[in-house]
Each structure stands twice: as structure tokens, then as C-alpha cells.
């Protein structure tokens, strides 16, 4: 019903291309997140869907019907802006009621003074008020209806903006970084609220953010954009576990994935700092590759014995960050490069110091070729499983 289809959508500002060849199908009721670095065109894309910016070419349809020629308010979409874009001079009530009055009253019935003459207005307004109140109740802002936006906190404004979007019962919710103006605590909280709202409404959500945590936690699917194109489209887990290139890999995950230069050895095995890993690729021997290892996949080797399928690196601790529940460990490794490991708090990590062996699961390594594209390792045959052990230098430890 409210399936959104973008076909070969492109946009240029003057001669500058900003978006090109965007093809995207968003299922009815799906929560799709657009993520990407600043300036990659996320806002432009979402504004094109809203009709606020005309596309240069391509087409957009909602529910199977092309909406290219429709004006913004005819598109049955609602948008929540980063700045909330509440009308500063209107009460919360009027802010939420506005889309309805626009829809249901004629121009005459909205004009100052003249509006007082309309009897239809007197009939319609209570209806609108009822609907506004219902929405406000859902969002728990009934007590704020008489206030001006200036007198609301960030989270409350956020909710009013949501209310204004919800009151129209749109087919599609568009949200452009709706949480980025909130402080960290509130952001975490509103994240949950939004996700629950989606579950309740079961409407299509298109959500823009550049915060990967938001993208990961709320979305059914995530589209990672860069320089006006979609790099990867998939579930959060897919993006985290199988990033198709270095950009996606390093954008998603915090602390960011560790990227280490490595080489393909003569037998196709990857050599990292002269240590051979149990990873074989179809690449030419001698090719440069980049290994991506997530911080949580690494830990000081002394903390557990080095097991099958693991490898290790000599590293020296530069800094320990205590997050209470866990530690972020910053290491220097040969390269020179720096590597970050994320380790649960505990007596072992407290003791880490100086030079250590950093152990990691070879199977958790992501391999990228020189162009930064993901390379799947060759499946290991059983005999390979035992060989690498000799290659792993046994850990120095604390």
C-alpha cells in the first residue's frame, strides 16, 4: 500500500551532481535508514521524496502511483526535521492542528476575522481538536498544548514535531536526523520511543541519520550512502558483519573497525606483519589487502590462551579508557599504526600494561582489496585448520 519506489533518481544543483542513479524499493511498513557522511546527499534525497526539491531525473512512486507531479502536501508524506521546524509563534496545539486545518478548511475559513463567520469552521474545529488531543495523549504531551515551542525542552519539541507529522496519518514518515539536536541521554531514550512508535503505527519510515548507532538499532534495513550513491543496502547485521567495502566497514561500528595493511603471500595466504594468517584469498600473490578487525574481536592474548583459528599481533599499550563496564584499549602496532580493542571490565584488563600480544579471531577478519572492496576468503579445508598454529607466535602477555 505505501511501498515507496525510487527509480533512477538523480539530482544536480546547477552543474554539480549531488545524487545519481538512486534505485530503492522500500516495503510498506518498513523502517529504512539512510546513513552516510555529511554532504553525501541524504537530506536531498529525502526532500525529493517529500517534494520539497524537484528531482533532475528519475521517478518516485508511493503505493505504486507516481507522485512526481504532486505538490508536497498532496503526497501523503509527513516529515520530521532535524531542527523540528515548529512554528515558533503558535502554541503546541496549533502546531499540531495546522496540517488538519489546512486540509479541511478552505482559504476563507482560515483568514483572520472572516473565519469567524464560517459555520463550517465551527463544526470542523472541534473534530480537529479531538484528533490533536488524541495524538497529544499518545505522545504524552497533553499538558503542553498551550505552550509555545520556545518554552519546551528538546525532547518535548521533538515530540511535538512527531505529533504534527502523525496527525496527518501519512503513508510515509520522513525523518531527517530528528535526534541529532538532543543530548546524549535523551537521544538514547527517544531512539526507543521512535522504534516503538514505528512498531505501533506500522507505517513506512524513511529515516536519515549519520549516527550509525541509530541506524543499527532502529532499522529494518539500512542504506549506506556516499557521494550521492547507495553503497550498500541491507539489514543492520549485514552491514556490520559483511560490509561490502572499507567505507561501509569503517563508518559502521564504534570504536571504528581497525584497519591493518597486509599482503597476500605467495601461496594465497594473507600475511600480516610477516605473520601468516589462516586466511586464503583468490587474490594474486603479492597483492596489497586491508584487514578489518572490529575492536571487540581483539583482546590481549594473555587473557586467554591462543586457540585454534586465532592469530595475534605484537602491540604495546598506549592508553586505557575506562568506560566502567568495559575498557577501550589503545595499542601501537608496527606499521606504525594504532589498534583499538574493546574489552569487558575485569581484573585481567586492569592488569594489561606495556607490550602484549593482541589476539583476534581470524574468522572475524574482513578482507578488502586495493580498491577497498570486500573479498571473501576461500573456505578453509580441514587440513588448513591445524597448520596456522605454528605460525602464531605465542603471546608475550603482561
Amino acid at each position, binding site marked *: 500500500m505505501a511501498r515507496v519506489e525510487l527509480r533512477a533518481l538523480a539530482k544536480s544543483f546547477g552543474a554539480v551532481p549531488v545524487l545519481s542513479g538512486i534505485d530503492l524499493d522500500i516495503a510498506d511498513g518498513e523502517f529504512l535508514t539512510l546513513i552516510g557522511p555529511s554532504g553525501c546527499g541524504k537530506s536531498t534525497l529525502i526532500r525529493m521524496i517529500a517534494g520539497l526539491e524537484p528531482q533532475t531525473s528519475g521517478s518516485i512512486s508511493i503505493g505504486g502511483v507516481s507522485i512526481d507531479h504532486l505538490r508536497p*502536501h498532496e503526497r501523503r508524506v509527513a516529515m520530521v526535521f532535524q*531542527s523540528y521546524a515548529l512554528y515558533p509563534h503558535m502554541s503546541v496545539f496549533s502546531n499540531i492542528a495546522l496540517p488538519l486545518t489546512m486540509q479541511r478548511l478552505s482559504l476563507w475559513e482560515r483568514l483572520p476575522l472572516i473565519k469567524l463567520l464560517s459555520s463550517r469552521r465551527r463544526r470542523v474545529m472541534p473534530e480537529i481538536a479531538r484528533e490533536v488531543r488524541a495524538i497529544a495523549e499518545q505522545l504524552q504531551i497533553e499538558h503542553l498544548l498551550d505552550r509555545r515551542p520556545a518554552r519546551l525542552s528538546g525532547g518535548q519539541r521533538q515530540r511535538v514535531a512527531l505529533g504534527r507529522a502523525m496527525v496527518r496519518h501519512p503513508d510515509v514518515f520522513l525523518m531527517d536526523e530528528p535526534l541529532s539536536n538532543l543530548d546524549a541521554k535523551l537521544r538514547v531514550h527517544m531512539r526507543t520511543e521512535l522504534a516503538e512508535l514505528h512498531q505501533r503505527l506500522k507505517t513506512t519510515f524513511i529515516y536519515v541519520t549519520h549516527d550509525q548507532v541509530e541506524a543499527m538499532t532502529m532499522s529494518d534495513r539500512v542504506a549506506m550512502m556516499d557521494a550521492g550513491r547507495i553503497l550498500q543496502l541491507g539489514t543492520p547485521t549485514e552491514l556490520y558483519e559483511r560490509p561490502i567495502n572499507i567505507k561501509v566497514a569503517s563508518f559502521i561500528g564504534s570504536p571504528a573497525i581497525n584497519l591493518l595493511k597486509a599482503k597476500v603471500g605467495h601461496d594465497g595466504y594473507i600475511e600480516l606483519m610477516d605473520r601468516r594468517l589462516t586466511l586464503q584469498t583468490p587474490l594474486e600473490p603479492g597483492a596489497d589487502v586491508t584487514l578489518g578487525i572490529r575492536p571487540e574481536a581483539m583482546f590481549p592474548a594473555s587473557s586467554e590462551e591462543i586457540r585454534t583459528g586465532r592469530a595475534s599481533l605484537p602491540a604495546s599499550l598506549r592508553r586505557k579508557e575506562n568506560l566502567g563496564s568495559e575498557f577501550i584499549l589503545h595499542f601501537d602496532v608496527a606499521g606504525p599504526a594504532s589498534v583499538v580493542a574493546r574489552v569487558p571490565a575485569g581484573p585481567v584488563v586492569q592488569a594489561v600494561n606495556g607490550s602484549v600480544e593482541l589476539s583476534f579471531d581470524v574468522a572475524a577478519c574482513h578482507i578488502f582489496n586495493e580498491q577497498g572492496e570486500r573479498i571473501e576468503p576461500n573456505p578453509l579445508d580441514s587440513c588448513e585448520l591445524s597448520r596456522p598454529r605454528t605460525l602464531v607466535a605465542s603471546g608475550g602477555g603482561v
Partner: protein
Amino acid sequence: MSTQPLPPSAVQTSPGLARTRHILGLVVTHGLLLTGAAFILLPFVWMLATSIKPPDEVFTATFSLWPKRFYGVENYSYALTAAPLLRFALNGAILCGGILIIQLLVAIPCAYALAKLRFPGRDVLFVLVLLGLAVPVQVPALPLYIGLANLGLLNTYFSMMVPFFLSVFAIFLLRQFFKSFPDDIIHAARLDGMSEFEIVWRVVTPSAWPAIAAFSVFSIVAHWNDLYWPLIVITDASLAPPPLGMMFFANAETGSNYGALTAAATILTAPLVITFLFARRQFIQGITMTGVK
């Protein structure tokens, strides 16, 4: 990375010195401000003093502030009765009000278009607006006068107002203000189904009122005191705005009653002073927000 000692020349503040310095600063600041204020106020003091003096005490060999004979009642009642001063004030109010309203009605959409819409010829229009900023009324006066005469519109409120209907200053000021108005709100309004017309008047304008207040002060002050143009187009005394009315007193050829003249001036200046008093806060805030900074 060893820390260096402070240079020996740096004299450190002692508790006493800090106080002295504070007091000295206050004395200097207020000293300067009060001196300037005295210069600014001098004419007004003379005006007020004269407005309560009998004619024979206005010019004396030695200057005195307070009259020997208090003549304020006579002067003010003369000022109010000899010429229809209140009528002039009313004319002034009609004139300023009419001009201001049309100026805003014209300038707000134009400023909005210049600030927020893309349309061909926008830059040309803006350059023309800036050109208009430099043209004093004296310049187009004669052609305008002839034009109004041919239309039979001389000697009306309309003819007094028409050259000022377009305030390029208002367009300039409001354009600066609208530029800083968030695009998102305009987008939200479009999504909510508002027409551009409603966006201008229902969304952008209400938030611009400090700038509008600021401009109103400028506009009212200028047109309340304008003499040049009404003098040209008005031949009916009952339409005269305040300064034209003032001429009934200020005329040089015969009995200038200075007491009544200054009384009238005081009465006619008062509305402006009061206007400024009320709009003062918005005034400065408004200018600040218009990016004239």
C-alpha cells in the same frame, strides 16, 4: 616544557587596586556619557524651558531656565487652540499608519521573495532595491507631483503617502532578517499544505516582528517629521501633518510666539518619544537579528 615565570614588569593587582580601578572606570564612563547627554539634551532643555516662558522672557541678556512668570498654561493652551494641533497629530498618525501598513504589505512579500525564493531577475531586483536606498524624495519629487496632478490626486492623504509606499530600506532590512529564517520551517509549512501566501503572512511574518518593530520606529520617525513632500502636495490645511502644522508657529514673517512654538514642538515630539520608549527593546533586538551587524 618548563613553565616560565611571569615577566617582572607585570604588576599584580592588589585587592585595593581592583576596587579603585572599578570605581575609576565607572566615573570615566558616566562622565563621558553624561557630558554627551548634556550636549544632546541642551536643545530639549531650552525647548521645554521656553515652552513655559512668557514672550518677553524668551530673549534676555542672561539665560535662565526657569521663568519669572510661569506661562506654561498659556503657551500650551495657545498651542492647542490656535492651530488644530490635535488634528495635525491625527493627520500624522493617519499618514504614518497608512504609510507603514502599505510599506509592510509591499516589502514583506518582496523581502521574502528576495531572501527565500529563486526566480529570474532576483539579483537585478535586489540591485534596484539598493539603488532605491540612495534616492532621496527630492529627486523624483517633480515628476511625481506632475503625475499626481494629472491623476487629480493632489491634496489627499494618498498623495502624501504614495512616494513612500515602497520602502527599499524595509525590503533590505527584512531581507536580511528573512535570510536567517530557517528553511526547514518553510518546508514544513509547504508539507502541511500552506500556500506561499500563507507562509509569508502566517509563518514568516509573525516571527519577524522584532524586525518589523525596528523598521516601524524608523518609518514613523521619518514620516512624522517629513515636511518636504506634504508641503508640495497638500493645499488643504486640514490634511496637514505635524511639521506643516508647526509652520503655523515657526513662520518668520510675523509674530513668532516662541513659547507656543516650543510648546507645540513638545506636544508633537512626545508621541514619537513614547513610541520609541515602547518599542525600544524590540527595536534593538530587531536590528540585531536583521544581521545589520
